């Protein structure tokens, strides 16, 4: 089985496994042909029209040693509210991830999505890499989930494909 179809199957399994509505995200960290590679810091959040964080979904940074000093390099996340987050936070922060596909799934009825008011939002994925660059991708969506909805964005430098699936 190809890697892509395995990922697809995994995504389908994730999507179909739960009875409750959910938001599923597939984030690709690309393989980069560089001499010095460090895994990127990544932040995933939901933003409303006021450009503030409506829900923090994931923050990946180097946990070993004190490397929180580089969190402001996730520039958009930082200014939109990351600077108010006292890391580490259970269920939010975690270690940096390797190259590949990463599936994140969030129950629509549980924190942090449960508190979202009906309206238009953007899902934002921002990645920044030591001695590398920074990239942020945005996928608009509407809340609450009424029908299955999909959105995607394609990164060019620090991120690969990002796919959002909303399951009612």
């Amino acid at each position, binding site marked *: 089985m190809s890697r892509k179809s395995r990922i697809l199957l995994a995504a389908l399994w994730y999507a179909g496994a739960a009875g409750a509505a959910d938001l599923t995200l597939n984030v690709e960290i690309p393989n980069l042909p560089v001499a010095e590679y460090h895994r990127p810091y990544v932040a995933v959040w939901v933003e409303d029209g006021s450009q503030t964080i409506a829900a923090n979904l994931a923050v990946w940074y180097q946990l070993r040693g*004190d490397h*929180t*000093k*580089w*969190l*402001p390099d996730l*520039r*958009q996340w*930082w*200014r939109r509210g990351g*600077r*108010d*987050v*006292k*890391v580490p936070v259970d269920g939010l922060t975690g270690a940096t991830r390797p190259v590949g596909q990463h599936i994140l799934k969030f129950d629509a009825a549980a924190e942090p999505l449960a508190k979202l008011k009906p309206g238009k939002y953007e899902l934002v994925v921002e990645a920044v890499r030591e001695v590398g660059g920074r990239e942020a991708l945005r996928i608009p969506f509407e809340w609450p989930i009424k029908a299955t909805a999909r959105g995607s964005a394609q990164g060019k430098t620090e991120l690969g494909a990002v796919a959002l699936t909303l399951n009612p």
Partner: protein
Amino acid sequence: MKLSFLRVALLSLSLAPAAGFAARAWILPSQTIVARSGGWVTFDAANSDDLFSFNQGAMQVDALSVTGGDGAAVAPQNLAKGKTRSSFDLDLRASGTYRVAVAGDVVMARWEEDGKPKRWRGAPTEVAANIPANAAKLEVEQMQRRVETFVTVGTPTEVKGVGTGLELVPARHPNDLYAGEPARFRFLLDGKPAKDLAVEIIAGGTRYRDAPAALELKTDADGMVTITWPAPGLYWLDAEIQDEKATVPGVKKRTAGYNATLEVLPQ
């Protein structure tokens, strides 16, 4: 010690801009946004026309004042005075916005005594003791100046007005500036809106371009200007006012100046 700074800085900065030998005064932070865990930030302070290359003279930092978001003073460390710049480190730990400022308020006087020219410079409180009440041909002027920059650890805190001299009270936080986004700043003189004030903003890296490319703005009736940052980078902000509203008894003429170093980030 404070006066020695003021003599040099105020003389060179405020008295001589028209003559062309004034140098721009700036304090340059090594970073303006610091993670919640805090950290060391290093500053260079210099008087030089090239922004931000320290190639003219060091700024005296004896009057340096650093205050955190809670108003508490922070002591500079590793203070060093070189030929072309002063530098110091700050160990910033508590969350909030730090104001790093060199501010001065001095009176300068010239008069004649028995046909001989006399000069005096000193603090406003010492005017009466040093300038004879019946001094002949007395010329006296108050010089106020503030040179500052801002650094935020974690969550920004409000930058409050000082209430004296010319100052910037930001509506948009000075550590929340982004290219292409408008920022509104209010200028106050003696704590009141400074209207029709000319404000000049110059991007750093002047050595690497032919034109200064200054943004020339003017405050409205509320002392407000709106700046839309053309590009990311470090900027130097300059404003100066000359009036007859000195705050020292017996003095009319006053020059009040303000300079800030601001960092604008990419989107």
